[in-house]
């Protein structure tokens, strides 16, 4: 998967779970501070990401995934 493909898939996940417009899901955005995604939605997003990208996101790792770029990089490194 290219970075763009990962980002596009992630945009669709964040839109479906948290109702954030896909265009707002940019690499430099913080989920909590910029996109108003709370901790429970982050758990759901991580579960959907695990399924779509075939990665495992341990609970301890989840708190390090603060920005959209953090997730894209994590998927790229672990898929």
């Amino acid at each position: 998967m290219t970075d763009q493909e990962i980002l596009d898939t992630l945009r669709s996940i964040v839109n479906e779970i948290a109702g954030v417009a896909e265009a707002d899901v940019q690499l430099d955005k913080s989920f909590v501070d910029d996109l108003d995604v709370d901790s429970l939605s982050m758990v759901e997003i991580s579960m959907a990401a695990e399924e779509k990208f075939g990665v495992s996101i341990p609970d301890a790792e989840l708190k390090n995934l603060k920005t959209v770029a953090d997730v894209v990089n994590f998927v790229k490194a672990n898929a």
Partner: protein
Amino acid sequence: MTNIAARPLRHSEIIGLGVHRATHVVTNDEIVGPIDSSDQWIQERTGIKQRTWAPADVDVIDMAVDAGSKALAYAGIGADRLGTIIVSTISHPYQTPSAAVLVQDRLGAKNAGAFDISAACAGFPYGLGLANGLISAGESDYVLVIGVEKLSDWTDMSDRGTAFIFADGAGAFLMGPAQQPGIGPTVWGADGSEFDAIVMQPNMIELRNHFEQTGEFDFPKLRMQGQKVFKWAVGSMVDVCYRALAAAGLQPGDIQAFIPHQANNRITDAMVRGLKFPDSVVVARDIIMTGNTSAASIPLALDTLLRDGQVKSGDLALTVGFGAGLAYAAQVIRIP
């Protein structure tokens, strides 16, 4: 070989519903002080606008008897015809005897066996599965299943993860024999490796030892690893629901209502997304005004749907309970 006589096999159905709603309304604003939270934060993360608590002079037996006697009256069945009383509770303050025997005495159910089950938030569907088995096998004609909790007694009001969740109340189903199945097969399970995901601590021995060693009295309170429970419920219960529907030979669009344990509206939201119900399926949201009443939440939520005219007698509903254990159970029911 000499044969053992057995009673004929048959079906069961729900013939009565009764609830007890706790009378003391507690708003979010009343509880946010010790947890440095806000009404908005609680509503966003749980859906809860208020919860209902029982006053100090009302205990789990009072609430269970009220709900149980209403379920009997609903069906017009006398308490002396009960074969079994099953009470699901985690907040009855005696290790023994059970809450069920006290309910049996208060109802005057002189012919009934009575026992409690400990399956926490999964307790009500667990009880329905047991009742179905007892009636189907001919062990009992009428079984009263009661879920009752007074969780306000066991909640740490300074715990930022649980103070706003738990509440009080009771709900009861009366089940009896039927020509056609009024309840689908129960899909249940447990995972004791996650024992500490939701747990009431300290236990009685720890409480005694701690008191003897330090002189400090540390009353047991419910502890919950909220994020872990959320992930488990959202990740696992959709499949459990599908299996319960399949066991009853049904598709998501064949039912009229989805009545999950009222754990957290966000868990319900995620389950509904996963289950892809058509818009015609009514989803229970009783937690908004009642809070999480554990074993009592499913019958309380059904009562609200009936009272609001969102479902009617004869409709099919999917119920699923899940929580401490971890334990879960689901089945399809026909609404009495």
